[in-house]
């Protein structure tokens, strides 16, 4: 308009023509962008059931046949671990527990030995809040079953077991065997095996030539690579409502684990008893609804999510530090959120209004 008023007709026309050209080019550019967006590499989801839950394998930029083949290999891994490490159906682990109960030294294969060794370290670091030696207590509560039904165990039985307090410190590990000083010790890896297995699965996928994948075992997942130009985008389940409370982008090689009181529980006489048993009291831990941990190591993230859930509002920052995790989100029974600063920097709330949240500095 300005040109028309101040300049000659020719200049004005040239300007209008270049405007026109600009718009045409701009439109063409936009269309190009759109087509660039719509050219997607193949994305595959494969699912199967193991460890009493749904395992989901997602691969990006892998062709149909290779994706199915890779997923089948991972399913075999999971079924083997589930069979060998099952805490209540006859397995290599139940056979091991029987020998440990008699005070005998028992041979252990390399795969189980690695899990036992990692569990012992993480358990000691957690002040025993993550205690895979307490299989008997989990069984007493009925959580060593496909369908926990209650009622809660008699108080005296819990007291008796706690007075013996089997811990991972009672376990002596050699290069190929283990022995326990405490006849009450029964190993149960329910609070670590899924996170550990998800990472092993990702490592196996990598050996199969897959570069971009997610292995998700419900509350525990591990990622590799990216979803094309963007990182993998993960939703974290709301502990009290259907849907997602927050989301986070994960970098290649990261694990995320969530422990919630909604995962496994039974209701008895109107009261809900969940599966995260506090070794200090012998009862389900109070005060927390869910804890999410992000770490490079899957076993560490899984065990820490359980330990920090049990630790509660006051103790969790200290235990997080001791267990070597710095990305934590804790949601309490009132729905209030506590986050470490490293977690606050990357998590994005997906609900309105945004929950009341406090950033916690680790000691």
């Amino acid at each position, binding site marked *: 308009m300005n040109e028309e008023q101040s300049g000659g007709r020719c200049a004005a026309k040239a300007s209008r023509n270049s405007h026109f050209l600009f718009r045409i080019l701009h439109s063409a550019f936009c269309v190009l962008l759109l087509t660039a967006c719509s050219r997607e590499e193949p994305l595959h989801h494969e699912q199967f059931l193991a460890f009493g839950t*749904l395992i989901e394998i997602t691969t990006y930029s892998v062709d149909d046949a290779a994706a199915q083949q890779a997923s089948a290999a991972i399913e075999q891994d999971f079924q083997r671990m589930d069979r060998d490490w099952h805490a209540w159906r006859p397995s290599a682990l139940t056979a091991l527990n029987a020998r440990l109960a008699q005070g005998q030294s028992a041979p252990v294969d390399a795969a189980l030995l690695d899990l036992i060794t990692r569990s012992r370290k993480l358990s000691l670091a957690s002040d025993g809040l993550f205690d895979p030696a307490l299989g008997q207590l989990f069984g007493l509560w009925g959580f060593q079953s496909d369908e926990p039904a209650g009622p809660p165990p008699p108080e005296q039985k819990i007291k008796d077991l706690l007075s013996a307090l089997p811990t991972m410190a009672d376990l002596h590990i050699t290069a190929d065997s283990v022995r326990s000083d405490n006849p009450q010790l029964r190993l149960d890896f329910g609070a670590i095996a899924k996170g550990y297995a998800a990472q092993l699965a990702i490592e196996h996928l990598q050996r199969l030539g897959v570069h971009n994948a997610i292995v*998700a075992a419900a509350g525990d*997942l591990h990622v590799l690579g990216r979803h094309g130009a963007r990182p*993998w985008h993960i939703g974290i389940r709301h502990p009290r409502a259907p849907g997602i409370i927050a989301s986070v982008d994960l970098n290649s090689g990261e694990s995320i684990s969530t422990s919630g009181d909604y995962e496994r529980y039974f209701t008895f006489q109107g009261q809900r008893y969940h599966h995260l048993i506090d070794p200090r009291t012998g009862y389900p831990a109070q005060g927390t609804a869910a804890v999410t941990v992000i770490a490079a190591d899957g076993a560490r993230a899984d065990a820490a999510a359980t330990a920090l859930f049990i630790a509660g509002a006051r103790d969790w920052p200290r235990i997080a530090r001791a267990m070597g995790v710095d990305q934590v989100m804790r949601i309490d029974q009132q729905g209030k959120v506590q986050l470490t600063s490293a977690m606050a920097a990357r998590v994005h709330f997906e609900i309105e209004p945004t929950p009341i949240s406090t950033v916690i500095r680790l000691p």
Partner: protein
Amino acid sequence: MTRADWLVLACLLAVQPWLYWHYWRDQGAADSAVITALGQAPQHVSLQHDQLLKVHGPLGDSVLEVQAGRVRFRASPCRGKQCIHSGWLSRAGDFAACLPNRVSVTLVGTVMRYDAINF
């Protein structure tokens, strides 16, 4: 503005509704369900057709109901009935399972908001 300018403008306005629909529609809407059962290949089911589906598991048959773009566990031979209490699922990523009977259902949409869900 020349006639050509108006033409470009009209073209852009004409594609606007399509662009809006394509990029801003509810990305969470689900259009199918994936049902898994122990030892069986995952079954893809459209949510467009109302139906009752029997899925066989170790304890017996779980019954899934598809109705008006939603799905739910209507019956299952488990004790706890947690699967039934999950209620209707309607958004992509929603998930329910009858673990005792080893049957699960996950909703998927054309555009998934999340690559995976941490339960």
